[in-house]
Structures are given as structure tokens and as C-alpha cells.
């Protein structure tokens, strides 16, 4: 009790300090700030429901700074200092954070995070804040804000908001915002039983629209119910098409990951005939290179990621050369020994990463321009990181095709694989070609690692998860054929994603494996078998 009292006293004291400090400014500002501080002080309580009421009070205060406060509260940046002031944290990296005064917006320099107390919120408050900000933003001069606000209002319009909304729609200049607001109003109309709303909502794919229409379809008013049913069936039709497109995208994306992981193997195993069980660990090294790059270039994840592409290639290629020179060259023509030796190498590399770096996963940051998704319509949006990986896989594939078809190295590789003795007698240095080919295959595995670091864990086990899939793709596609790897990877990805919704992830994987086993029985040399005499051997 006494503590509470002294806290109150302290507050009063501080209040008077703020008031006197600003005595020279006009009297209205002074009164405003005192009121504002009171509003913010109300937020600094333990109970979430009391915070909710404080948020409402801020919203109704008509203070121009209200939106900024609510936004920084939502972002967790509204904090209280030890001496009872409220500040907005501008950047929360590191130990000392630059802050600005929440009342005056004046920068206050850096403060230690130990001296700051965040005003915590939970999910209910987050929802309340977003709705509150949406209502404020309806009147914002910024089009982007109005757009976000309008989509937020779908299904949230009540009687109070309906009246000003129709007026706002009439005055709105941006077509997108007007469309959204009309939909929001129409949902309200449908919910209150007006037929007009159903007509407006026809064709919209937004989930809130569907919820409103399904409710209307069960209503007692048969005219509305019929209209809603009709609108719903056309929406369902449209949704099915979108769902199909989405599955196709998922399949292509999974396929591109498989292609990336397998394409390096298609060179070392497919072209050279070396069973390299450490292929997965070369992928892992590529991913760790990305992590290391980001450590070297803090604050620039995007640049680091782009630089990791050559770096990851180089690291994996060098390790590949070491493996080839150190082990594989001595085991030429002995596949079983190669398999065992490279499996050993894979375990060594894994444990090396565990001991040297950490057994724990490393955080690889996804740059801003790769996060989120590209919204096509209300029912279909494509995730950006996967789109980049899909594009990257195609570029890598194209580059490899060029190297194999158009360069001297490619020519030599093809010559050596088709007939080693003949190639050597023509003056090709087969050993050098072996090294270069293995380095190329390993380097591509490193590239796969750079891409995978954006999709999955960067940890010691990363490679293990992809080695089986990689062999599967190469064998299915036809050993020694790059096109086969591309087609096999993409089609396995699509088959997997089509099966997954009704079979479940576990069963889908099993079905794909069984399918491949049966397929290999029928066509042992895969989709695109290698032609010519060399392939017979």
C-alpha cells in the first residue's frame, strides 16, 4: 500500500516536472501533454483488460498522436523509462537503443534496454489495436494506409460504422479502397438481411465474404438464401480453380528444391558415376556459408545472400576437390567402397560442424524482399521466398546446360564419360577433367545450400534430409541426363503435393517411393535413358 502511494507521489511529481519544463510553451500544449501522459500512464498496468480500456480511451481522446502511439504499442516499441517517461524505440538491435519521446517526438539519443520497460500486449489486444488503427486510418491521406484499413474492415463493420462508410465510399478516389469498402459495407448489409449486399459480393473470393454468404444461405428469408446460395456456388467454382493453381505452384516449388538438391548429384553421380554420399553435406556447407556471410555483413542480409552465391559455390567446390583428391580417386571403379568412404566423410563433416560451430541450428535471416507473398487475388497468393528459389533453380539448370553443351569443359566431360581411354588418347587430361567435374557438381550442391538456407533449418542435419531425395530424383530421371533430373524433380514435386491433401504427408511420401520402385522395375534406366554404347556398360 505504501509502495503504491509513493509510486503515485512519484507520478504526481514527474507530472509537475513535465508541466513546469514546458511552462514557456503555450498553455494548451501543456494541458494536452498532461492529458496525454495520463492516457499513456493508463497503459502501464498489469491486467490486459485494463490495457484494453486504456486503448479505447486513447482512441476516443482525439489526440493527433493517438495513431502513432497505438501503432508503436502494436509493434512493441512503446516503452516506459525508469523515470516514468514514455518513449518510442526507433531500433531495437543490440543493447542500446535509439529512442524518441512519445509525447514530443524529439529524439532522446540512445538508452540501455535495461532502463526500458516494454508495455506488453497479448493477441486480443493486438486484434483490438489493429481494428482501432483501421478505423483511424480510414480518414488517412495516405492511400496505402487506407487500403490496409479497408481490407481490415471486411466483416468488422457494425451499425455505427455503416453510416459514415457509405459517405466515405462516395468520396473515395482510389478504386481499390472504394471496392474494399463497398464489400465491407455489403457484408454488413448481408448480415442485416438486405438482398442488395448479396449482389455486390457476387464473385468475391475473400474468406469473410464466404462466411457471410454461407450464413445468409441458411437464413429464413428464402429470397436472400437462394441468392446467397447461387453466389456461393459460383465462388466455390472459382475457388476450386485457384486451389488447383495453388497446388501446382506448391508442386513446382517443392520440385525446384528437389532439382536444386539433385542437380549437383546428377553431375557427380550421373555423369561421373561416383556415388557421393557426402553430397548432402556439401549442400549443408553452402547453407553455412550463407550464415557466415550474414555474420560478416551484419545488417545487410540481402547483400550477404547475393554474395553467398559465389562464396557457397567456391566453398563447396573446394571441399569437393579435397574429397575427390583425398579419397575418391583411389577408389575408382569400386562403387561399394566409394559409397562407404563417402558416407564416412558425410558423418565426419556433420560432426565437424557440430563441434566447431554448434550442434544448434543457426539463424539465417530472410531479406525483406524475399519475405511475404505476392497476392494474386483473395484466394491465391504465392510465397516470395519459394518463387525466388524456383527461379534460382531454373537459372542454375540453364547455366549448367550451357556449360555442358557449349564449353570446352563440357565437351571434355562428355568425352571422358563416354569413353575414357579414347578421350585420353585424343589428348584430354582425364584426371584434370575428373577434378573439374567433381568440383562443378559439388559447387552446384553449395548453391543448393544457399537457396535452402532460405527455406529450412541451417543445422548439421540439413544435408541428411536431402540425400535420399536427391538420389531418388537422379535415378528416376535417368542417370547421366540433366533434362531427366529437371523433369523428374518437378514431376515428383507436383505428384507429392497433389497427393498430400488427401493422403497426408507421411503416406504421400510412401506412395511416391512405391511409385518410383515400380517405375524402376519397368524402366530401369529412368525417364530419359542415356543412349549410345557407353551407357550399356
Amino acid at each position: 500500500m505504501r509502495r503504491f502511494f509513493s509510486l503515485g507521489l512519484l507520478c504526481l511529481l514527474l507530472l509537475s516536472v513535465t508541466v513546469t519544463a514546458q511552462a514557456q510553451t503555450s498553455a494548451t500544449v501543456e494541458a494536452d501533454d498532461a492529458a496525454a501522459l495520463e492516457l499513456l500512464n493508463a497503459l502501464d498496468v498489469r491486467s490486459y483488460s485494463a490495457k484494453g480500456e486504456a486503448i479505447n480511451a486513447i482512441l476516443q481522446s482525439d489526440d493527433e498522436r493517438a495513431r502513432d502511439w497505438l501503432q508503436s504499442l502494436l509493434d512493441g516499441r512503446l516503452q516506459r523509462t525508469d523515470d516514468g517517461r514514455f518513449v518510442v524505440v526507433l531500433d531495437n538491435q543490440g543493447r542500446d537503443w535509439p529512442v524518441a519521446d512519445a509525447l514530443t517526438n524529439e529524439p532522446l539519443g540512445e538508452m540501455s534496454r535495461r532502463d526500458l520497460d516494454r508495455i506488453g500486449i497479448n493477441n486480443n489486444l493486438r486484434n483490438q489495436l489493429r481494428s482501432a488503427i483501421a478505423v483511424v486510418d480510414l480518414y488517412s491521406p495516405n492511400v496505402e494506409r487506407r487500403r490496409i484499413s479497408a481490407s481490415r474492415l471486411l466483416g468488422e463493420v457494425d451499425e455505427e460504422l455503416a453510416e459514415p462508410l457509405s459517405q466515405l465510399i462516395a468520396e473515395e478516389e482510389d478504386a481499390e479502397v472504394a471496392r474494399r469498402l463497398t464489400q465491407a459495407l455489403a457484408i454488413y448489409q448481408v448480415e442485416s438481411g438486405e438482398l442488395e449486399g448479396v449482389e455486390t459480393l457476387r464473385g468475391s473470393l475473400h474468406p469473410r465474404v464466404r462466411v457471410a454468404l454461407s450464413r445468409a444461405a441458411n437464413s429464413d428469408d428464402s429470397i436472400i438464401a437462394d441468392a446467397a446460395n447461387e453466389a456461393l456456388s459460383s465462388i466455390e467454382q472459382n475457388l476450386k480453380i485457384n486451389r488447383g493453381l495453388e497446388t501446382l505452384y506448391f508442386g513446382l516449388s517443392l520440385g525446384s528444391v528437389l532439382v536444386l538438391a539433385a542437380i549437383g548429384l546428377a553431375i557427380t553421380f550421373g555423369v561421373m558415376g561416383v556415388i557421393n554420399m557426402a553430397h548432402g553435406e556439401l549442400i549443408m556447407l553452402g547453407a553455412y556459408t550463407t550464415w557466415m556471410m550474414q555474420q560478416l555483413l551484419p545488417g545487410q542480409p540481402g547483400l550477404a545472400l547475393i554474395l553467398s552465391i559465389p562464396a557457397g559455390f567456391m566453398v563447396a567446390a573446394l571441399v569437393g576437390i579435397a574429397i575427390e583428391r583425398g579419397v575418391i580417386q583411389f577408389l575408382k571403379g569400386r562403387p561399394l567402397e566409394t559409397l562407404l568412404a563417402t558416407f564416412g566423410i558425410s558423418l565426419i563433416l556433420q560432426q565437424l560442424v557440430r563441434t566447431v560451430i554448434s550442434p544448434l541450428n543457426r539463424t539465417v535471416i530472410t531479406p525483406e524482399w524475399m519475405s511475404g507473398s505476392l497476392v494474386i487475388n483473395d484466394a491465391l497468393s504465392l510465397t516470395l521466398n519459394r518463387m525466388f528459389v524456383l527461379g534460382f533453380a531454373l537459372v542454375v539448370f540453364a547455366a549448367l546446360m550451357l556449360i555442358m553443351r557449349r564449353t570446352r569443359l563440357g565437351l571434355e566431360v562428355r568425352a571422358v564419360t563416354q569413353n575414357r581411354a579414347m578421350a585420353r588418347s585424343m589428348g584430354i587430361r582425364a584426371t584434370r577433367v575428373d577434378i573439374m567435374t567433381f568440383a562443378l557438381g559439388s559447387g552446384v550442391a553449395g548453391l543448393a545450400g544457399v537457396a535452402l538456407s532460405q527455406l529450412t533449418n541451417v543445422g548439421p542435419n540439413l544435408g541428411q534430409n536431402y540425400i535420399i531425395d536427391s538420389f531418388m530424383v537422379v535415378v528416376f530421371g535417368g542417370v547421366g541426363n540433366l533434362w531427366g533430373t529437371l523433369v523428374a524433380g518437378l514431376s515428383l514435386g507436383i505428384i507429392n503435393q497433389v497427393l498430400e491433401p488427401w493422403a497426408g504427408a507421411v503416406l504421400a511420401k510412401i506412395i511416391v517411393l512405391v511409385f518410383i520402385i515400380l517405375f524402376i522395375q519397368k524402366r530401369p534406366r529412368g525417364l530419359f535413358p542415356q543412349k549410345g554404347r557407353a551407357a550399356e556398360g
Partner: protein
Amino acid sequence: MTTLQRKTHPRTVGRFATALMAAAVMGASTQAIAQDDDPIKVGILHSLSGTMAISETVLKDTVEMLIEQQNDAGGLLGRQLEAVVVDPASNWPLFAERARELLAQEEVDVIFGNWTSVSRKAVLPVVEELNGLLFYPVQYEGEESSENVFYTGAAPNQQAIPAVEYLINEVGIERFALVGTDYVYPRTTNRILEAFLKDEHGIADEDIMINYTPFGHSDWQNIVSEIRRFGEEGKPTAVISTINGDANVPFYTELSNQGIDAADIPVIAFSVGEQELTGIDTGPLVGHLAAWNYFMSVDTDDNYDFIDAWIDYTGDEEAVTNDPMEAHYIGFNMWAEAVRKAGTTDVDAVKDAIIGVAVPNLSGGYAAMMPNHHITKPVLIGEVQDNGQFDIVWQTPSTVAGDAWSDYLPGSRDLIADWRKPMECGNFNVVNGSCGGSTAAEEAEAALAE
């Protein structure tokens, strides 16, 4: 006759007593010599390589730190403690072999170890056969109580059930997606939760979605999109995640990329702690939930001491603590207390002494060992923050005692475990009043397998 007897009796007693005393003194002195020479051996059975190394390595370090602290404080019974570390390499049969090695060759006095349920099931027969002590620190699916195992992690009623009640009562969730990795813990937990949701809260079949994925699953596009559609039907929806280990990072990444926000569809996880979040950029995950019995953000002096000691021990400023570490902290202190109480490290004596022992936990309360070899724990719900920590938004008013046999499964609800004399039974059937032995456990398992 009677007088004679009366005369002889005290004498015999006296003689007996002297003999006994002499024996006791001799015994004690030989024991004392042995004690001075030998340190107390503490076995640590955690994977340091392979897939589970990510989670288990820190637990090995935790036990080593606790041993070091105990030794600095003068050891136990005047003896020093010595850690015996083995590496079962995330290989379940190897767990059994290593446990045998610890008990038969190294003759350790106690084992701290295991993470996955399947590894615990592998070790169980060995520990029972060789009469060892095993402290198991991870939340698990329940349906087990062994004479030789002490479960310091949460049983389902100490994590899953309170978490679901929080979602229903405090958040107002009406629709549940139960998503998990395909193995024994998620399957059993989800069965319990499904029964609980339907029977206790009248949730309809169509409002429960259940999905399993393989270990290390990395392509979550389809499942996340399914969850999104599941949540778009107009009822407040939440995801209950029993996804294990590595698979969580791609899952959460996909969630944020597909724009599923915690305010729309919160995900409450039972296997995601501070440790797992170190591999994720938590910015987009703010507001997703986890249910544990301990969070690093717990605001108590004991916890701050523990964190400081841990940071000193690891030499890593950014080192995090998590729930299973606290479980080892509690388990280790309980064992030490029981050894002190029994005056010996003898397994049978410690087993009897430990029941009822209460030691402080890190969240400002006490953990007590119950007769069913489970402990009392508070249940905390935390929301993910952008710094990778959890903000505690709710907690049970008092601690909850672990229940070995779930009350929500047929076949299991009639069983209780009590390792005190005279019952000494891990699966006592209260309906037919007998210690069920293998039949009751089999029935429960058969019911699970349905």
C-alpha cells in the same frame, strides 16, 4: 519359568545389541573408507551426435554444471560427484546399450538422460533389470510409471490440457487443428486432446483437424494452406502443435510467409522453447504461444541466478535456458536431497526417500515428488516476442501434480501409480483393485492403438 525368562531376556538383548553395534560400527567404517575413496558417479545419457544432439547437448552441459556446483558446495555426503558421460548418438537401440554400460560397468548411482519417448522406452527394461535410477527431463505423453524412472518433465495434464483450457476459456477458440510429428508423443497427446475436446467441451468432429508429418518435414506449403482454409470458416481457430525439433523452423517460416498472423490463428506449441527459437527470426512470429512449466523470462531471483550461472558456465552471452534444463535442475536437486535424507546413494533407499521430497523450482515455487514418480509443476503460457523470448500471459494459480495415467482415455482412466509401500505398483487398477501388471498396460496400449 517366567522369572528365568525375564532374567535371561535382557541379557540376550544386551548381547545382541552389542554385537549389532559392533557390526554397525565396522560396517560404517568400511563404508566410510569406501566413500572417501570413491566419488559418487552420475551417469549422463544424452545424445551428443546425430539428430537429437541439437536438443540434448545442452542438457548434458546442464547436468555437468549442476555437478560442478554441487562439488563446489562440498559434494554430497562428504563425497565428490563425478560425471560419466556417454553418447548414444540419437540411436534408440544404442541408448539401451549405453544405459547397460553405465549401470553394469561404470556402476553409476544415478542416470540423467533421454529426450525422445522412444529412447526412454528402449532404456526402460535395462534400468528396471539392473535396478538403476533414471531422471527423465522432457515433457512426454504419460501412460507410464516405472519403479526406476522419475519423470521431471510434464505429463499431458501439466501442459496440453491446461493449454487447451486457456485457449477455450481465455481466447475463445472454437476450432482446433492438431498438427504433429508422426511418432508416439504427438499421437498419444492428440488422442488425449481429441477425447478431452469432444467429451469435456463438446467440440464437434468437423471442428477438429488432425495432421501428422514425418520427422524433419520441411515442405509445409500444403499443410499451412490447409490450416489457413480451416481457419477461414468464421470460427476462431487455433493450431495445437506437437511438431518436434527441426521441422518447426520451416513450419513457422511458411506460416509467416503465407501471412498467417498470431492474432488470426494462434499456434500453441508444446515442443518449441527458447532453444528452438534461436534458429528462427521471431519477428513475424510475435504472439504465437507455447505452453511450458518454465520460461527463461520467469521473473524470480532463483531464475536469474540460474541464467547467470549458465552464461558463466557456457561462456556464451547469448546462451538461453529452457524447460527441460529446469527439469534437470529440479531432478538433480531432488536426487541430492533424497541422498542426503537416506544417508546413502543406495538405489532402493533413495527411491523410498525421494517420494515427498520438495525442492524449489525456478519459477518461485516448490516441486514435490509424488508417489507416482511425477512431480508438481506450475503451467505457464507464453507469447513469442521479437527477441526470441516468451512473455508469460497466463499461469495456473497453483502447481499441478503430474498424472501418469490420463483421465480422458478409456483403459487408462482407471489406473493409478503409487510406489509407496504397501502398494508399490505402477498401474494399479482401482476398479478391480489389483495391480494390473502387464495386462492393464497392454489394454491401455491397445486402446491407444485403436
